[in-house]
């Protein structure tokens, strides 16, 4: 009965079309709406019994239906997006070049695609994928890698020479995108006994990541253990990483940056851009938050060029 009620779908459409929601990503919109429902639950339950809403339906069931319908939409939209990225924006042959061994690219692509699907279906893991979504949606990696490779300064040196990953800028973009897609794996409860967001200390996080990379390699044996480690370790502060893990250090910063990303944020005149401001603050607290000072400093310098 609820399913066939056009008013509920209309209500959900209305919510999704609110300006604050519309400009957000599907995962961001889901997060906002669920937070909204949680904080306004008593008021909503009263409002829903009013004649202009759903007087004939039990409010709790109505809300439960709204949430499940919303999540279904978010999953569908997110899947379309991630699959598009996997199929059109990533060149998986880069892994062959990095590890200098043959890789079954199609199989790898399918396996990563299936894993992402599983992770997206999981509501806890999905929310942790919000920064990943934003990074890919804004093509942020494409923009910064081009700039960093042009500068050939600290970050370039870290990514190429220290990590011993001698590939071109466009290949590095694909490489980082693959790592980024897999970076949320430690927050996937179905595969991990304990997930990252429930860890209370950095040491515990490091332990979870270590276990998680082992699980990941079993799940996708086509990928190298080093890539598994780099992807999963993107959740760890600099002092828990090995020297060669430059990609993880960069992705750790980007994930934190996009965790605070606000699409369509209005910038007041006289204020720095959100990027410049974020890196400006991050370079001062790099040690406390585990950011690589050198990378943050360089991102701060190029922040105004990231368009």
């Amino acid at each position, binding site marked *: 009965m609820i399913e066939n009620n056009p*008013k509920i779908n*209309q209500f959900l459409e*209305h919510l999704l079309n609110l300006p604050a*929601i519309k400009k957000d990503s599907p995962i961001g919109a889901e997060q906002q709406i669920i*937070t909204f429902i949680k904080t306004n639950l008593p008021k909503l339950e009263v409002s829903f019994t009013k004649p202009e*809403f759903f007087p004939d339906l039990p409010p709790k069931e109505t809300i439960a239906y709204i949430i499940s319908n919303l999540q279904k939409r978010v999953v569908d939209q997110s899947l379309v997006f991630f699959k598009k990225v996997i199929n059109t924006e990533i060149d998986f042959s880069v892994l062959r070049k990095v590890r200098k061994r043959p890789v079954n690219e199609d199989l790898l692509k399918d396996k990563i695609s299936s894993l992402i699907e599983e992770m997206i279906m999981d509501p806890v893991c999905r929310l942790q994928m919000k920064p990943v979504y934003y990074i890919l949606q804004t093509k942020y990696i494409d923009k910064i890698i081009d700039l960093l490779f042009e500068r050939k300064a600290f970050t370039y040196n870290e990514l190429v020479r220290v990590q011993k990953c001698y590939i071109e800028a466009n290949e590095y973009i694909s490489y980082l995108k693959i790592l980024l897609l897999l970076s949320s794996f430690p927050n996937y409860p179905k595969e991990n006994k304990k997930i990252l967001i429930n860890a209370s200390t950095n040491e515990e996080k490091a332990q979870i990541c270590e276990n998680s990379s082992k699980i990941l390699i079993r799940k996708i044996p086509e990928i190298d253990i080093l890539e598994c480690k780099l992807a999963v370790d993107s959740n760890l502060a600099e002092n828990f990483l090995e020297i060669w893990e430059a990609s993880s250090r960069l992705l750790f910063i980007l994930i934190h940056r996009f965790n605070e990303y606000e699409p369509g944020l209005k910038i007041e005149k*006289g204020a720095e851009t959100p990027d410049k401001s974020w890196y*400006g*603050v991050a370079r001062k*607290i790099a040690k406390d938050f585990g950011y690589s000072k050198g990378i943050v400093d360089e991102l701060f310098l190029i922040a105004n060029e990231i368009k």
Partner: protein
Amino acid sequence: MVKKTKSNIILKILEGFINLVIFVSILQILLEDIAILKGFDNKFKIILMLIGFGIDLIFSIEFIVRSILAGKDSGFIGYFFYQYGWIDFLCSIPLLLMNSLPSFILFLMTKTLYKSTVGFLKIIRIIRAIRITRILRILRVLKILKNLQNASSKMAQNHLSQILVIFIFILLISLIGYSFISDFSVNKMVEKQIETYHFALMGYNMMISDLHTNSKYEQLDELLSKIKNTFLVDPKILSVELVNLPNQFKLKDNLLYKISDFDNLVNNFSSTDLDVGFFKLKISTQYYENLRISIELLIFVSIILGSILYIFIYLKIFVSRISDVIYIIFKGIKHKDYFLMVRIPENYKDEEIFEFAKFYNDVYLPAKKKQYQKSEEKSKISIDDLLNLDL
């Protein structure tokens, strides 16, 4: 909710209407002066006078209504002294009572417009200069301009208004002062001119008297032709008539001289009469009137252009170097999830305000970030968003 929206729309329409009237009032002042300069048709001048009367009436009603409403809310004193009520007053009731209403009444009674002739309605002419106080009303229009700069900074708006009031007020006082001085000097110039005519005519009078005493009546024509030639070269003399000549002088026509465009010049421009002995002269004072109005117009246009320039140049400087900086720092202190840094221009980084901004960027924000725990996601939608829902 619906009621509130309706009253908001009405208020917005009224505000828009008043802004339009302000622009029209400035245009009307300009056209009124140009009409005098160019000698526009009387009908046009009457229309302008009526528009001026209408504008002053609207502003007066607006001032009274605002005063009554302010009396109900924050109080008349608050409105008058702190919300530019005094400007509304200066631009309304005094102008209505001293300028447009007398002109309107004069028009109703005589069906003619007053003309700024020397020695006639001098007070009204001086008060006309005070019409320029209407420029102060531009300040009300500033609300339109606020979006050009920092819409959120009340500081910038208030500062701009206060400085602009001082700026325009000083110019106005200068202009009004100038009006008195110029009126005095124009009068002096006219008086001097009349004195010259008077002196010349006294000589001609004596010559005519001599002819009469010596009974040389036949020599009058020769003398008159000499006098006529003198007047022909002076464009300020509109007509010369001979009056009270002894009967022995046989004259065909008492009108000695009349300028070709006499009717137009007398009806549409200012002039004055001069009676000296046997001569009655009609003298144009338009030259002096033009001089006075040209300077008034120049000052008027300068004030407008100066104000506009001020708005665009000074406000931009003030906003970018003071109010924006304070606004961002204030927002950063007030909102726990606001982390945008202040942009510090390289050229001004030594100024105290940017030193302060640097401290905010480099010390306050990082310290705040360390304290800040993104414990709970905040939704940007509110329960009020549901009120607009029409299922």
